């Protein structure tokens, strides 16, 4: 599809530490231009591995065994570290999960924010600082000068996440990977951050891959979503359609387990044993079929 900004195709990976256990099973997903795409799954589903593969930061015990990651007509998996560095930050930026560990505690916000603007956008120090000020304004930080002169520990979690969002979107990338950007935040702050990501994304036409375990957050911000279980895509589609009429039993089980304040008598449904058995069988059958030699 011509509108795809990022096209992950049949991406497979194994864990070298754990008996070559498959951790991604021919995952395909496309993030379109100007789209927020949700990548949903429970822990161990492989969502972070996909995000890391895109960013070229796969840990040493994980090996990519197949597939490609298409971005701007190139396969990111085949780029040299130098070529990848040119893409990262400039065309692809990350909003990390934990705003408290993602910022260097020994450097002030102005230093952290101007790095990218100088190195990736070629601004002078003076211009970079002006731009950083404007970016903090854009993420509704009331006193940008004070924040620019602060160290990360002097800011609240919500403020730090705003700084990271400003830094990521400020480089005007084509794609932002948001890896569980609100899990560490209070609900009211989470809502503000979700609103901010959506507003910036719409204003700049950025594509966003929104990684989350929370179907609620995904429902509020994503145009389409991919549901992942044990490294395999279970369901994919427009958010409204998947949530209104989930086709895969796993998606239904995820929704049924979610407590909802508006429906206190539903939710907390344990995944039925027959669904778990069917899921395991589906995964096992897939592994057998992909291990079979091509001509045998």
């Amino acid at each position, binding site marked *: 599809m011509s509108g795809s900004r990022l096209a992950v195709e049949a991406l497979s990976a194994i864990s070298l530490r754990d008996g070559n256990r498959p951790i991604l099973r021919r995952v395909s997903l496309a993030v379109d231009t100007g789209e927020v795409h949700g990548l949903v799954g429970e822990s161990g589903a492989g969502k972070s591995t996909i995000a890391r593969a895109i960013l070229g930061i796969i840990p040493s015990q994980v090996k990519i065994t197949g597939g490609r990651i298409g971005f701007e007509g190139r396969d990111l998996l085949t780029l040299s570290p130098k070529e990848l560095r040119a893409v990262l930050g400039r065309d692809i930026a990350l909003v990390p999960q934990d705003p408290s560990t993602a910022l260097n505690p020994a450097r002030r916000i102005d230093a952290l924010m101007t790095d990218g603007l100088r190195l990736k956008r070629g601004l002078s120090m003076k211009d970079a600082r002006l731009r950083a000020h404007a970016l903090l304004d854009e993420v509704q930080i009331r006193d940008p000068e004070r924040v620019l002169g602060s160290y990360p520990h002097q800011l609240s979690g919500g403020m730090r996440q705003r700084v990271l969002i400003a830094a990521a979107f400020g480089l005007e990338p084509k794609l932002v990977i948001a890896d569980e950007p609100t899990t560490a935040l209070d609900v009211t702050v989470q*809502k503000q951050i979700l609103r901010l990501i959506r507003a910036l994304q719409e204003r700049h036409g950025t594509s966003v891959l929104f990684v989350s*375990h929370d179907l609620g957050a995904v*429902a509020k911000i994503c145009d389409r979503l991919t549901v992942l279980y044990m490294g395999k895509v279970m369901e994919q589609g427009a958010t409204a359609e998947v*949530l*209104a009429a989930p086709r895969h039993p796993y998606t239904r089980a*995820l929704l049924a387990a*979610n*407590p*909802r304040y508006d429906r206190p008598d539903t939710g907390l449904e344990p995944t039925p044993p027959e669904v778990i058995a069917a899921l395991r069988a589906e995964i096992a059958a897939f592994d057998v079929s992909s291990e079979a030699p091509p001509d045998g």
Partner: protein
Amino acid sequence: MAKDLLVARGLVVAYGRPAGQYTRRRASPVVLHGVDICVGKGETVGIVGESGSGKTTLGRALLGLVRPTAGSVVFDGSDITALDEQARRPLRRRMQMIFQEPMSSLNPRHTIGRILIEPILLHGLASDRAAARALVHGVLDRVGLPRDTVNRYSFELSGGQRQRVGIARAVVLRPDFVLADEIVSGLDVSTQAQVLRLLKQLTGEMHLALAFISHDLSVIRSICQRVVVMREGRVVEEGPCERVFAAPLSAYTRMLIDAIPLPTVDPGWLTRGAAAEVAATA
């Protein structure tokens, strides 16, 4: 209306040290500003608040793990505010706690069997090890863990299994009151559902009073009868869940509820309430 089991009045907690030889006395930050709360026998009460609201401190003050600067805590008719450790010990069996991080609250060098048996013997609930072991087997069956879990260590278990051990350790002592502080926040939804379901069943069966601290109002709604909403060390609202969720009296409660993203598509949700939030945080 259930009879009161645990009643706290005017709880004030301030952290900090008095002046020492080398330190000037600093104004100690006040974390609770006179909190009233009561939990009836067999009642499940949710305590909700954002970070810094004082909900964890309130829980700890109820159990006597933090000494309040002012106010009182009455448990089953007797004032326990000023009891020393020695006098409090018999109460420990009746007031149990399930911790947020089962990984750090279960001793990694003890088997699960030892972790479960020791408090039983300590509180004299079994005459000998064999009888204690029988109680342990019973509680493991009840929380849905295989009996051979007794030979395992906490790090060999999954997060959900560890939290089941935490629940087993608390309920095996047949307490009257259990405090659960953010016990499902690190779990996947399917595991969370199982743990919450178990806790709900146990409180019903054992007529157990529960104070359930959480930042998640949906979770509280699913297992609690009453809810207490905290903000900056004060109770801003409390009442039966049904009423509070249907018609919150406080604007802050309304904002907390509106901030929960339900898994439904609602295009207006993101922008709704933006002005109110700015006003509330200003």
